[in-house]
């Protein structure tokens, strides 16, 4: 039937851009990267198939330590962003009056307005020993001498939490927004106190938003580059930095590709675990925000 042919043709036409996008820009490049990571450099301009790059990773504690460090700090950042962001999201979605709600939400988006670079730049200006905060503390007499806030893990975490906060708050606000206020009232009405209502009603209800926010936050953090480099101290290596180094300063694309695959596997496993533990799926979390 003509109608059916037309439908089929439309479907193909709609599928084509999707397929081109996913195949050419996502699948093939990743296959290419896997292939590249399985090449061993045996001499200049001479390569062989092998797992040397991965073995290298396993045998060198620096590498996997850095990956673990990156992972654990990313989890920490994710947790902090959730803890700090949840009350804010709740305030915006449930407590603020209709008019302020829009304004507050807009304010939350402000950091998105400028790049990572400028955000980090701003933090440097604030945190450095001769920066604004330290100067203020000295000026106000709270501190006797300038204090260095920059160049340490705490600074990195502050900067990262700042950078990803938005991606935590937006899905939280949107799920909490969809929650009928009477649900919370019912929670109280049936005898729950503030804590019970939070634990048994609000948090479970917001779970898709929480998971969505956590996934995006975690992966943004683990994949970030500028913030840890610019704010980090002497000990703060970040896995992306090592990937960059492999590619750029060591011209070792093969190892860089292997590291890239490892980072991808690592974040995927963490995200997968998170989804399993929270009983959510990618489709009802990230795909919804």
């Amino acid at each position, binding site marked *: 039937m003509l109608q059916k042919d037309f439908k089929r043709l439309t479907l193909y*036409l*709609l*599928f084509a*851009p*999707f397929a081109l*996008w*996913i195949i050419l*820009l*996502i699948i093939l*490049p*990743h296959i290419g*990267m896997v292939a590249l990571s399985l090449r061993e450099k045996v001499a200049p301009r001479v390569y062989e198939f092998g797992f040397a790059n991965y073995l290298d990773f396993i045998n060198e504690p620096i590498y996997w330590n850095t990956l673990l460090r990156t992972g654990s700090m990313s989890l920490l950042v994710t947790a902090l962003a959730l803890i*700090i962001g949840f*009350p*804010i999201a709740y*305030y915006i979605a449930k*407590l603020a009056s209709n008019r302020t709600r829009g304004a*507050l939400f*807009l*304010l939350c988006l*402000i950091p998105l*307005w*400028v*790049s*990572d*670079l*400028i*955000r980090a*730049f*701003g*933090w440097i*200006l604030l945190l450095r020993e*001769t*920066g*604004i905060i330290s*100067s203020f503390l000295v000026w106000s007499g709270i501190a006797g001498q300038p204090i260095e806030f920059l160049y340490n893990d705490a600074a990195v975490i502050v900067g990262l939490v*700042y950078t990803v906060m938005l991606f935590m708050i937006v899905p939280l606000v949107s799920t909490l927004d969809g929650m009928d*206020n009477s649900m919370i009232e019912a929670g109280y009405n049936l005898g729950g106190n*503030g804590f019970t209502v939070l634990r048994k009603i609000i948090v479970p209800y917001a779970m898709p938003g929480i998971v969505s926010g956590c996934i*995006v936050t975690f*992966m943004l953090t*683990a*994949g970030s*580059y*500028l913030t840890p480099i610019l704010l980090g101290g002497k000990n703060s290596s970040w896995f*992306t930095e090592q*990937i*960059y180094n492999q*590619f750029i300063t060591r011209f070792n694309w093969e190892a*860089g*590709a292997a590291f*890239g695959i490892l980072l*991808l596997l690592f*974040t*995927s496993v963490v*995200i997968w675990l998170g989804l399993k533990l929270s009983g959510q799926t990618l*489709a009802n979390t*990230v*795909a*919804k925000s």
Partner: protein
Amino acid sequence: MLSQNKTTAFILGYRLYVAAFFIFLAAPLVAAGAFAFNDSLFPALPWQGFTLDWFFNDTEPKLGMFHDDRLLRGLYYSFVIAVIVAALSILVGTTNAFLFVRGNFPAKNFFYIMMVVPLVIPGVILGISILVMASDTANYAEDVWGLDLEFLRPGIFLVVMGQFSFITTITSLVITARLKKFDETMEEAALNLGASRARVLRTITLPFLRPAMIAAGIVAFLVSFENFNTTLFLVGSEAPLTITMYDRMAKVGSTPVLNAVSFFLMVGSGLLALVSILVQRDKTKQ
């Protein structure tokens, strides 16, 4: 209203917390913006007095941003790239929305997940994977066929592709969400009133999607504009602004002209964000 049984102290504390949070959000931006007006060669305290030199002065060493060709060129490339990426990603985002909302095909769920996946791949990895594939292809073409596929070498094309590869997920999600809210009977109504399919698309469905497309476009534009991680690996000689600024910071030394650019960007994206909000406050919410 949902905390009526809490003490006023609790509410006050809550408000203070919210206020503190927004100060936290604003602080680095204010800091970055404020030093644009400091009459000093370094973006640092002490405050040396107010100046607009970092915007308008036309001589070294205090070359203002509007006279700094390299920054302006970066701005221009950023703009061009962002516009192309936004346009492409809206286009594909829209076809994806139709595909997943209207289409019926095997393994639809799986493909839907595939559509979301680029958002959870670290940007650095997207960058290098595309770089690797593009160079391999170009090298192969050169070695085997003697073809010089220059567009596969780092440059604007690859930057656009790299950004497009994950920004399309964002636009797809935004537009899909909107299309899901579309009442298909509206299309049937239009058909019923005598419109052809093409006309229905043009006069009913696309206008309905327009706010989402604009909003998605603005988000795409902003994300592209500020992207660093993916771009870093794909950039050629036409460097967009973030890269230019980074190079400036890391390789030359920053002057408050970077603060001036930051300030300029904040104002610009602020305006854009406002536009997107005005657009989304559309009249089609029944």
